């Protein structure tokens, strides 16, 4: 009989407990995630951060530049959220952050982001853009969503980046059960019997993984670099035996033939690498050998290209511009090889790299200066760069700003589906920047109009018990708290004295309801330049 009692009491007690746990909010904004202090206290970790800081200080001293002061912690948190999650911190997360003691806030915030599934999904999408662009690809042979899902799994498991890239270059099989092969199958063309294009693959490998625009030498010798056409064709030849058949992507027979532009003569090209040939292994299929050469820890370009790209993600601007060309006119800052060496010597750990970047003094600098920043200030990172947000960051920010609670994987499935639908629609209308997402672009009038009058803005800011505007109007103790909460929710900072004074007076006006006045304040904040920029 005891089992009957156990079953009955368990059912009743379990039901009541489930209700209470799921529905009752916690009294204090205690963080639900934890960070591992040892990751930040590691000796080599701190040494790398110190060396990077020292390299920048050395540059500033040489140029006789005084860097600006540190940014507010919330500004730093906003940068990380935008760079790694594609959205701004929620009010809920800000409360959790400020509940912690000040010295532990940033490390907690970094790890909070790294543990969030949204980070894996967002970083996977960014990496996919670098690898396969944003095109839909050939029907049936390319499954972009499958590939992004696979990349997200790899990032979530913190798989070493060299292994991920190795898979992308050398994987065999079907694009469904071996999603990494989509890197190859995306280049297949119906006009070429659905076979992959070695030329496009060579271009993607060099840009995405080596940070060199070797494809500029496809038709002729590179105008400004040492690369010759033969170097490019030699790299393309590694994909000369790659085919697509019933078994999916596989390595078989065949040779890559380059066509001379003037004579249309075809000649067989042997595979060879453009530099560090001693790193190319002798054994294995061509793609296997290329993959091992690219990801070799002694190949300086792989680690540097990755560091440059991750730095661009976190900071909004790469160390060397453009992000896929380490040999541009931009000077290579000493921090790049320092970070690259640490990245390569620690197993190509992406999370470690992100932690290091976010812990540097440069990352924490303010974007505002008491003087007009000069070109030298910007080139030496004496002031944090201001960069225009990408479309998915704008829409992520708008959607999060309309909610006091965090819209993450724990949010209701309907909220997440609505977010996904809104994001897709908004990005389409706003204009997707595609693979050149780190190129600085100016804003357009349609983008401005979309933020001013778009359906998303209207729906997310209108008076509704589900929107932050109405909830702040209902729960804020007074007008000062309402204005402060609005600023925290939208701009991730507190208002200045002048701003607070202005908007409190606006709220005190009795002509409109409080919710409606807050809706106007939200609209104004969303349409500020500050909201649409990373700073």
């Amino acid at each position, binding site marked *: 009989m005891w089992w009957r009692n156990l079953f009955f009491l368990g059912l009743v007690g379990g039901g009541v407990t489930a209700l209470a746990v799921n529905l009752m909010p916690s009294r204090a904004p205690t963080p639900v995630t934890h960070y591992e202090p040892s990751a930040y206290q590691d000796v080599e970790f701190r040494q790398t951060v110190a060396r990077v800081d020292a390299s920048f200080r050395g540059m500033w001293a040489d140029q006789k530049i005084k860097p600006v002061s540190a940014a507010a912690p919330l500004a730093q948190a906003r940068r990380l959220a935008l760079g790694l999650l594609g959205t701004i911190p929620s009010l809920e997360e800000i409360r959790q952050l400020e509940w912690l003691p000040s010295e532990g806030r940033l490390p907690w915030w970094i790890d909070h982001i790294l543990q969030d599934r949204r980070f894996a999904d967002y970083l996977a999408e960014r990496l996919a853009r670098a690898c396969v662009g944003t095109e839909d690809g050939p029907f049936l042979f390319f499954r972009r969503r499958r590939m992004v899902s696979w990349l997200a799994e790899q990032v979530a498991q913190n798989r070493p980046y060299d292994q991920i890239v190795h898979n992308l270059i050398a994987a065999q099989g079907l694009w469904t059960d071996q999603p990494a092969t989509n890197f190859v199958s995306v280049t297949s063309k119906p006009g070429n019997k659905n076979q992959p294009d070695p030329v496009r693959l060579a271009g993607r490998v060099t840009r995405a993984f080596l940070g060199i625009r070797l494809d500029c030498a496809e038709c002729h010798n590179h105008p400004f670099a040492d690369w010759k056409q033969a170097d490019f064709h030699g790299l393309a030849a590694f994909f000369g035996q790659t085919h697509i058949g019933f078994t999916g992507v596989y390595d078989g027979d065949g040779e890559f033939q380059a066509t001379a532009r003037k004579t249309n003569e075809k000649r067989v090209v042997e595979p060879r690498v453009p530099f560090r040939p001693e790193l190319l292994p002798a054994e294995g299929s061509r793609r296997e050998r290329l993959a091992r050469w690219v990801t070799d820890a002694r190949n300086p370009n792989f680690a540097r290209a990755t560091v440059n790209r991750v730095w661009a993600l976190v900071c909004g601007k790469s160390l060397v511009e453009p992000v896929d060309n380490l040999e541009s006119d931009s000077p290579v800052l000493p921090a790049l090889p320092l970070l690259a060496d640490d990245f390569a010597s620690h197993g190509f750990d992406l999370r470690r790299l992100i932690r290091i970047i976010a812990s540097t003094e440069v990352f924490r600098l303010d974007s505002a200066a008491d003087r007009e920043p000069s070109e030298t200030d910007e080139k030496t990172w004496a002031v944090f760069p201001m960069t225009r947000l990408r479309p998915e960051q704008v829409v992520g920010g708008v959607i999060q700003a309309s909610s*006091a609670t965090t819209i993450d994987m724990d949010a209701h499935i309907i909220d997440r589906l609505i977010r996904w639908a809104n994001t897709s629609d908004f990005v389409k209308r706003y204009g997707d920047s595609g693979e050149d997402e780190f190129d600085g672009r100016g804003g357009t009038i349609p983008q401005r109009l979309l933020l001013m009058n778009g359906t998303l803005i209207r729906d997310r800011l209108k008076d509704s018990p589900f929107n932050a505007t109405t909830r702040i109007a209902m729960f804020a103790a007074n007008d000062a708290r309402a204005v402060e909460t609005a600023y925290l929710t939208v701009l991730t900072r507190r208002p200045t004295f002048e701003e607070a004074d202005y908007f409190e007076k606006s709220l005190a006006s009795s002509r409109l309801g409080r919710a409606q006045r807050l809706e106007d304040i939200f609209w104004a904040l969303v349409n500020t330049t500050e909201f649409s920029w990373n700073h």
Partner: protein
Amino acid sequence: MPSSSQMQRWSDGAPPAEIVEAIPFVEPVPEVGAGKPVTRPGSIAPRPKVGPARRLLRFIGGLVRVVGSMLEWLFGALALMVAVAVLAALPVLQFLSLGYLLEAGGRIARTGRLRDGFIGVRLAARLGGIVAMSWLLLLPVRFVAGMARAAQIIEPDGEVTRAWRWSLTVLIAFTALHIGAACARGGRLRSFLWPFNIVWLLRRVWRGGYYTEARDAVWDVATALRLPYYFWLGCRGFAAAFLWLAIPVSLLALGRAAAPLGFLGALLLAWVLLYLPFLQMRLARDNRFAAAFELRAARREYGRAPWAFSIAFLITLLTALPLYLLKIEVVPTEAAWLPSLVFVAFIFPARLLTGWALGRVQRRQSPRHWFFRWTGRLPYLPAAALYVLIVYFTQYTSWNGVWSLYEQHAFLVPVPFFGM
């Protein structure tokens, strides 16, 4: 009520007085013209004449009851499908879904009646109603919880926040008690709509003995669900089907690397498909694991109902094929039950028909005329060959690629992907 033997004893005369007294509805019937009351032995006194208005009311009442019963049955069937779909989307609990589908077909195979395949519809209607009404009643609670959470974030120490928190606590307590009391009163729709269930519950508890009554009632409902039985049946059904499918599907999967292996796998799979639906159903019918491997017995049974077997076979394959479209893309885990619902909706009729075909076997002891046996075989091989061909190519479109070949939803769990 008098027993039948008592009824026979007084067939020739009036029932003894003590029996008349004991039967409250035996009314004296006046003899025609006699003016004296007469009670006929062993019969109920005729009802007094009813006016047309009352007849109409009774007819409407009866009609309402019939319509209500039909609606309850339909709701129960829908609730059952949703429950099976939700379980199918959960790892391990998926075997419950498979067990239910097999048992549905197995009962039809035992009795020969199609209606016996709809097991527990009325119970599902009751439980589904409880779940649906509880979900509806919790909607305002969730809204208030969202507001309280937002208030806690916006103004952690505010008076309004405290007020919302208290309101939420009271609302959770009241709603939980109301739902509990409604369930205690039978879980019917009217119980959930009645606002004073808590008063009833308190009075019932005050009277005493309610804990034992409630505990035993809950236990009876739980045991009536027969979850261990369905789970075990599902496990055995899965194991038997997987044992049959493992080698052919593995060879088919290897066909990408070596074409002859793929060809052999295709032939084997086509051959297995000819028998597997009925072998699996035999396991459910006889509740014996070995019944799933008795090929000769299955062939003999085919001879006794060849056309029924053919129809069931064709429907099994036909209903399974369109579901491969739902394997192309994966959905979020929380919404996994939605495609599962489509799977269950397609596969359930196939299982019922397979059980029906086996049930037809009981009607004959000898094989049918050769004409029926030979014509019954005609669609088998073409259908199986086409099915195998389509299944082979689904690895090029399905989310899991070659692994999707193992996710044979027609015979294993009715879900697009395992372990969702």
